[in-house]
C-alpha cells in the first residue's frame, strides 16, 4: 500500500506515535484529511442516492488493494454487484487485473435476508480471517442496519452490539474499513455515527440546470481535517475533490518591491512605475472598452520578459483568443508550444470556484508562472453553477488569496454597468479583494466618443489621479497623458476648460507629450538640447522619440541628431 505518514502525539504526552495515513488515491481528498486516512480506521461514507459513495469507495480500494493485502468488497442488497461491476469498470481507476487476486467481491444478501445480524457478522469475520485483507467495504451497510424498528426481531444481536463487534474485529485484524450507507441528515443519532472513526458526507444539489456535488469530512479521529463543504466532481477518471482552502494559502510568499511592466505604453507611468509584483489588479470597463486588449498586452509583456503566464478565459474559446492576439502580432501559439503560456478554458455553467482555483494553481505550479490573467470576472461568475454564485464574493476572496499567496500577479477584468458617478462593477462586491483598480469609460469630447481611464486605487503605492485618454490601434492600447483642459469628465460629457490649452495629444504618453511640446516650441532641436529642455535621461528620450517618429509626430535628419516636429496630428 502507498502510505503517507501523519505524526500524532500519544495521549500521555511523553511518547510520540505515528498514525500512518492511507493515501486514498482520490485527488484532493488526502489534503482534506490532513494527510490521508488513518490506518485501520472504521469509516462511514454516507449520503443520498447517486451522490458518489460507491465510486469513492471503489477508487480507494483500487488505489490500495494488492495481492498481499487484498480488499474485500461486500455487497448487500443495494446496487447489484453485476451492475456495479458493469458501470464501475468504465472509470479510469478500475483495473480488471486486480479483480480476483487483489479485490474480491462477495455478496452478503443471503445473510442479510435472514435479518439475523449474527449471521452477517459471522460471514464477514470468516471472510476477513480467510483473506486477511487490508481494506473492507460493506456496500450498502444501510440495507441491514437501517431496518425499521422490529425488523431485526429475529436477530440474536442488537444493532449497537453488531456495530461495536464489527468495528472491533476489523480494527483487530488491521483492516481499514468503509461502510457505505444512505442516510438523511436527521439520522445522525444512529449508533454508527458514534462508533465510526471517520464520517464522510456526500451530497448533491440540483439548482436549475446544474448539479453540484459536495463532500464533508464530518469527523476523522486523530486528524485535523480541513473544515467545510468541498466540491467534488465525478469524471471518467473517478472522483476528484477540490479542497475548499488550498494548502498554498497557508504559506503566503513574501511581498516584493519589484514592479511589473504592463505592456501598455503610458499605463506604467500612470501606475507609478508599473504593477507591484504580487498584486491583484482589477481592470473595470464597459463592454467594448478594450479590457481584453489590456489583459492580452499584460500577458504579452510577461512573455517578452521570459516570464510564464496563465490566461483563464470564460467568454470566448481559446482559439479565438489566440487568433485575436495574433492579429496584434502576439504569437501566443508559439508561447504555448514553448511551455511559457497556458490558456485555460473551463466548462461553463457548472463550475465551482474551488475547481477553477485547483486548475489555475496546478497550471501555475507546472509552468512556474508569475502572471495570471482572469478574463473576465463577469464571465467567471456566469460560468459558475447557480449555487456558487450566491457565495461568489467569499469564494473569490479565497481564490485571490490562494493565488497571490503563490507570488503571482493577477490581472482580472470585469464589466462596468451604469453611468458616472453611479458607475458599478458587475462584480463590485469583490473589489475589496483587489490591490489595484483601473477604471475605463467612454466619454464624449467635442461630439466624439473617446475612451478614458483612471487609476482608482493602488494599495500602498503612489499613482496618477488624472483621467487619461487611451486609444486602441492596430498595435494595441496606448495610454495618453492627463486630460487637463476639460472639466466634468465624470459626467461623461465634459466641457472645455477655460484658460490656456494644454498639450495633450492623442495616443501619447506623458513623457512623449512633453517631448513633443518642447519640440513644437523649439521647431527643431538637437537631441541633447531636447533632452535638457524636456528633463529626461538619454534612454527616456530615445524611447519617446522612437514612438513619436513611428507615430509621425516628429522627423529626424539623416544622422539622427537633428529632430523636428512635422505635424500635430493628434493635438486636441
Amino acid at each position, binding site marked *: 500500500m502507498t502510505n503517507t505518514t501523519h505524526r500524532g502525539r500519544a495521549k500521555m504526552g511523553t511518547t510520540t506515535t505515528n498514525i500512518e495515513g492511507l493515501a486514498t488515491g482520490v485527488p484532493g481528498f488526502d489534503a482534506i484529511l490532513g494527510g490521508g486516512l488513518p490506518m485501520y480506521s472504521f469509516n462511514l461514507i454516507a449520503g443520498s442516492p447517486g451522490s458518489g459513495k460507491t465510486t469513492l469507495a471503489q477508487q480507494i480500494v483500487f488505489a490500495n488493494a494488492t495481492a498481499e493485502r487484498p480488499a474485500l468488497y461486500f455487497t448487500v442488497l443495494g446496487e*447489484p*454487484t453485476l451492475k456495479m*461491476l458493469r458501470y464501475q*469498470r468504465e472509470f479510469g481507476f478500475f483495473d*480488471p487485473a486486480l479483480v*480476483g487476486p487483489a479485490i*474480491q*467481491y*462477495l*455478496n452478503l444478501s443471503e445473510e442479510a435476508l435472514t435479518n439475523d445480524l449474527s449471521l452477517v457478522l459471522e460471514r464477514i469475520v470468516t471472510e476477513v480471517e480467510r483473506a486477511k485483507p487490508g481494506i473492507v467495504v460493506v456496500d450498502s451497510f444501510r440495507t441491514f442496519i437501517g431496518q425499521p424498528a422490529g425488523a431485526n426481531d429475529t436477530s440474536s444481536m442488537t444493532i449497537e452490539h453488531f456495530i461495536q463487534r464489527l468495528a472491533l474485529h476489523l480494527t483487530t485484524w488491521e483492516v481499514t474499513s468503509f461502510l457505505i450507507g444512505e442516510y438523511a441528515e436527521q439520522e445522525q443519532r444512529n449508533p454508527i455515527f458514534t462508533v465510526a472513526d471517520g464520517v464522510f458526507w456526500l451530497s448533491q444539489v440540483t439548482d436549475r440546470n446544474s448539479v453540484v456535488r459536495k463532500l464533508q469530512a464530518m469527523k476523522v479521529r486523530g486528524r485535523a481535517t480541513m473544515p467545510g463543504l468541498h466540491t467534488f466532481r465525478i469524471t471518467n477518471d473517478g472522483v476528484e475533490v477540490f479542497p475548499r482552502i488550498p494548502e498554498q494559502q497557508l504559506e503566503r510568499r513574501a511581498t516584493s518591491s519589484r514592479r511589473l511592466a504592463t505592456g501598455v505604453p503610458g499605463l506604467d507611468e500612470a501606475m507609478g512605475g508599473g504593477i507591484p509584483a504580487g498584486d491583484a489588479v482589477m481592470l473595470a470597463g464597459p463592454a467594448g472598452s478594450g479590457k481584453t486588449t489590456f489583459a492580452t498586452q499584460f500577458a504579452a509583456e510577461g512573455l517578452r520578459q521570459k516570464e510564464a503566464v496563465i490566461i483563464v478565459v470564460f467568454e470566448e474559446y481559446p482559439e479565438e483568443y489566440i487568433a485575436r492576439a495574433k492579429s496584434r502580432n502576439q504569437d501566443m501559439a508559439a508561447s504555448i508550444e514553448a511551455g511559457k503560456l497556458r490558456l485555460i478554458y473551463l466548462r461553463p455553467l457548472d463550475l465551482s470556484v474551488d475547481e477553477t482555483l485547483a486548475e489555475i494553481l496546478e497550471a501555475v505550479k507546472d509552468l512556474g508562472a508569475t502572471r495570471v490573467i482572469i478574463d473576465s470576472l463577469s464571465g467567471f461568475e456566469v460560468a459558475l453553477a447557480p449555487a456558487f454564485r450566491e457565495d461568489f464574493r467569499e469564494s473569490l476572496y479565497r481564490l485571490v488569496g490562494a493565488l497571490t499567496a503563490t507570488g503571482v500577479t493577477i490581472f482580472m477584468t470585469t464589466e462596468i454597468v451604469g453611468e458616472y458617478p453611479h458607475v458599478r462593477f458587475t462584480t463590485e462586491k469583490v473589489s475589496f479583494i483587489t490591490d489595484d483598480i483601473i477604471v475605463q469609460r467612454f466619454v464624449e469630447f467635442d461630439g466624439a466618443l473617446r475612451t478614458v481611464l483612471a487609476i482608482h486605487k493602488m494599495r500602498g503605492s503612489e499613482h496618477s489621479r488624472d483621467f487619461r485618454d487611451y486609444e486602441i490601434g492596430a498595435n494595441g492600447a496606448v495610454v495618453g497623458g492627463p486630460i487637463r483642459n476639460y472639466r466634468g469628465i465624470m459626467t461623461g460629457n465634459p466641457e472645455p476648460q477655460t484658460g490656456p490649452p494644454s498639450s495633450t495629444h492623442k495616443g501619447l504618453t506623458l513623457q512623449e507629450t512633453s517631448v513633443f511640446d518642447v519640440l513644437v516650441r523649439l521647431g527643431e532641436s538637437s537631441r541633447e538640447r531636447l533632452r535638457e529642455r524636456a528633463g529626461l535621461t538619454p534612454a527616456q528620450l530615445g524611447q519617446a522619440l522612437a514612438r513619436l517618429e513611428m507615430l509621425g509626430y516628429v522627423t529626424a535628419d539623416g544622422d539622427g541628431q537633428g529632430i523636428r516636429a512635422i505635424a500635430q496630428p493628434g493635438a486636441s
Partner: protein
Amino acid sequence: MASVVSLRMEPRQSAPGTVAEGLALARRLMTRPAETEEAPGNAAFEARISEHACRALKRSLGATGFHALLTRALAEAQLAHPLLAEVRIGQQSAPILGNLQALIDTHGALAVAAALEGAMASLFSLLGRLIGDDMVARLVERDANDATRDSEEAP
C-alpha cells in the same frame, strides 16, 4: 495422480449468443488438471467444475443476481442441448445444478458433459457481455479455486 481431461470425441455445439471467449473459458475450466483419475468427457467431473464455477459467481454476484443469469444461460444453451431443460436449479446451500445424476442415467455421461460445457459457455458469454470477458475469467478462475477448497472442506 492428476490427469488432463481434454479429449473430445466430436465437436460440441454452441448455443446462440455464446462467444469464443466464453467457450474458451468453459473449456479451460473443464480441461484443468483433475485431482482424481477421470475419463475424458466424464460428466461427474464436469458437473463438479460447473458447480464450483457457479458457486464462485454466486459468492461474488449474490444469489438473486446469479440465479437470473443462470436461468437465462440455461435457456439459451437449451437450443443446442435440449436436455438442459431438465436441469433443476437448487436453492440455498443445495447443489446449484441439481439432479445431474438422473440426467446422466437418462442421457449418458457424454451428452451431459457436453451440455454442461455448453451451459457454462453460455453463462460466461452472457456475463462477459455485461462486465467484460477478462473480469469473468478472473472471478471464475480465481474464486473457483476458493469455492473448490471451501466445498471440499465442508462437512
